[in-house]
């Protein structure tokens, strides 16, 4: 909201004027109403490790994050470009593997990645689309550069908060909207439904679409249920589905009914105990066979994990150049791989300045922040890196830009990121904005909801 020197950003003048008129009591009053609304609507996430499946509210910050139209145009173009490249990459690594033959990425990094699914080699997916639903995390550093922080092309979550945050903001703070042009986001479910219809197996004229959830104890269950409701499609669990003769059916009061498209919110390795992890009780035996036979579409495709692998991330700018012949629109964070000798040398020299990540964990787990760590912690992390060089990476620390937030009775800047959601059907489309996650703890850079992060409504202003 504020630019250099604390001046109010021109796009935010109207908003700033409204908040200027609020005292502490008014902020607290609105916050209380917002929280009561979230509670009443049951917009909660489930905390793991609590056997009773306790439901908590994600902290909501009342001050919208504003993204001016021109900046959004850059983000949008950059994400569309990135997703097209990642999609071509996935098709390539599961078919001709030109990218490996041409030496763009070391073969071992791809075929040895935990996200690489050897069962997918040679499998054709409907319309060649793998990355139907993506959430690409974008940040702005202190110099104002837009950087991709990470790619999420498996089962990114958070879209329900985007829609509900907007809904609650319009209910609780209608006065904010006066004098502003905020682009709508509420049509996302219709876009998603048409994306899902677009990728139905050939021959399914009126496709039956379902969402597959691990169940009520999953941390994102609210979102699964929310999307099913907003699209008017059944929300199924693994136990509702069966596979016979390579076709998927759901158990209904009428008997078994054919299913054509499954938007699954279950990880690859537990989807089908016959093909992947045999101890899965949430999956559907035979599902992979039905998928490979082209009788059912899975959204997103199986095997996408290799495309949002944190190690492969280092090469995404090269992939964009290789597949599209374009320069990347968005920058990204400098990344160093222990597998590359000169990178490892750099890591050892600059350990105190880098952020260390595990290649296969997300949600802020398995991370070490160099500047906030002790020498012993860094040394033991480096030892783990040397033992399993494919499993780790290091990145330059970046200063995330901050956005004004309501904390402890006053307005203070807090670090934010942005997860825009993109859908790949007939074309790659985005809804304006996305999920702004905010690290509400002072100085913290971790914005994940599992680690105390909150969210904000996100406004793209100006006419598209």
């Amino acid at each position, binding site marked *: 909201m504020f630019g250099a020197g604390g001046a109010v950003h021109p796009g935010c003048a109207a908003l700033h004027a409204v908040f200027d008129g609020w005292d502490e009591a008014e902020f607290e009053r609105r916050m209380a109403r917002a929280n009561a609304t979230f*509670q*009443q*609507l*049951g917009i909660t996430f489930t905390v793991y490790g609590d056997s009773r499946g306790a439901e908590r509210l994600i902290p909501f910050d009342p001050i919208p994050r504003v993204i001016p139209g021109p900046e959004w145009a850059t983000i949008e173009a950059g994400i569309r470009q990135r997703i097209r490249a990642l999609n071509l990459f996935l098709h390539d690594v599961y078919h001709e593997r030109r990218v490996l033959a041409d030496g763009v990425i070391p073969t071992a990094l791809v075929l040895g990645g935990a996200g690489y699914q050897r069962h997918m080699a040679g499998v054709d997916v409907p319309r060649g689309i793998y990355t139907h639903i993506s959430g690409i995390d974008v940040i702005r550093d202190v110099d104002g550069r837009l950087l991709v922080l990470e790619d999420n092309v498996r089962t990114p979550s958070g879209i329900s908060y985007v829609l509900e945050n907007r809904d609650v903001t319009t209910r609780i703070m209608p006065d904010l909207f006066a004098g502003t042009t905020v682009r709508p986001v509420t049509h996302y479910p219709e876009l998603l439904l048409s994306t899902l219809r677009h990728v139905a197996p050939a021959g399914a004229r009126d496709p039956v679409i379902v969402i597959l959830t691990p*169940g*009520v104890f999953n941390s994102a*269950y609210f979102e699964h*249920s*929310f999307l*099913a*409701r907003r699209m008017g*499609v*059944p*929300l*199924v*669990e693994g*136990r*509702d589905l069966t596979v016979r003769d390579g076709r998927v*059916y*759901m*158990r*209904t*009061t*009428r*008997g*078994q*009914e054919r299913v054509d498209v499954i938007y699954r919110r279950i990880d690859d390795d537990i989807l089908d105990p016959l093909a992947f992890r045999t101890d899965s009780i949430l999956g559907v035996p035979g599902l992979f066979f039905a998928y490979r036979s082209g009788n059912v579409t899975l959204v997103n495709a199986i095997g996408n994990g290799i495309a949002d692998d944190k190690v492969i991330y280092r090469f995404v700018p090269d992939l964009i150049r290789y597949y599209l012949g374009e320069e990347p629109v968005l920058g990204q964070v400098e990344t160093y791989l222990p597998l590359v000798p000169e990178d490892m040398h750099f890591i050892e020299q600059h350990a105190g300045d880098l952020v260390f990540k595990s290649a296969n964990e997300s949600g802020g787990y398995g991370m070490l922040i160099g500047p906030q760590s002790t020498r012993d912690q860094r040394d033991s992390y480096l030892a783990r890196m040397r033992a399993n060089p494919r499993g780790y990476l290091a990145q330059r620390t970046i200063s995330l830009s901050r956005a004004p937030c309501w904390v402890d009775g006053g307005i203070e800047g807090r670090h934010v990121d942005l997860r825009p959601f993109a859908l790949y059907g007939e074309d790659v489309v985005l809804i304006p904005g996305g999920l702004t996650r905010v690290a509400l703890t002072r100085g913290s850079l971790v914005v994940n909801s599992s680690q105390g992060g909150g969210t904000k409504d996100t406004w793209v202003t100006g006419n598209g």
Partner: protein
Amino acid sequence: MLSRVAESVYWMGRYVERAENTARLLDVSLRFTRELAASYHDGSGGDSDLRLMLQVLGAEERYAAHHGRIAEPELAAFVILDPDNPDSVVSCISTARDNARAVRESISTEMWEELNRAYLALHRVTPSLLLIDGIHDFCRQIRLASQLFQGVTDATMPHDEPWHFLQTGIHLERAGMTARILASRAGHLEQAGMLVRPEEAHRWFSLLRSVSAYEAYLRLRPGGVQPVGVAEFLLLSRDFPRSVAFGVQRVFGEIEAIDRILGINRRQGPGNTAGALAARLRYTSFDDLAGGALLPFLTAVLQQLDQIGNGVRRVYFESAVVAG
């Protein structure tokens, strides 16, 4: 619709209804025994009535396992708050809400909000607050929450297949509760005579109140409260929405509606059981139930209600038939 969703919606209806019925029964029973004890200066006066209430709730053994005597505070805490009692009011609302949460995409947002509101309100209730003077208000809140939920359901949920499963659950539960309450009093019917003893009269008023039938009875059966008239009304009334006959007729209609939607014409199944029972209740004359025949009749009715519930589960929730 998904079998799992049908099952959840059905149990959601049953548990909301059970919470309401339990709250009403407890409230009326406690007030009745307090008054009885007060008028007879006899602390043990209402003991057997509270025991009967536990029988109606099917909770006598569970209560006895953890509590000794039947006394108001323990009993109220057990019936209302005890999370280890699966049929306590708190457990019923929680179970109903768990079911709602698992099928939120199949019910209206208004229904979910109503149930969620009732659930969240339960967490503000503490035993100490409740047990001093809060029982009546609490029970009233639960009744209102259930009625609001059912009204919102009626007004916001499409009256299609899921709605019929929900109604099946509600009316099966309601008919069962009325039948059990009536059965608990069937033994008193013969000895009650013309209500010469005031506590006997009081008992039959309370019976009417425990199924919310007091005013309806007075209006539809002029001539005052008489045990035989009350029993007949609660068993056979075609118009009163909590009578056994009314509930069974509704259950029959709901199951028929489901099969019509599914396009299935069954020769046997829960719909047939419900239809036969509805016909029997419709054409039974209460005179035939004199001379001790009421209790065996009610026992048979309860068995058939169980049979209908089992049939619904077998036919709709555990189906493995392949549609043509």
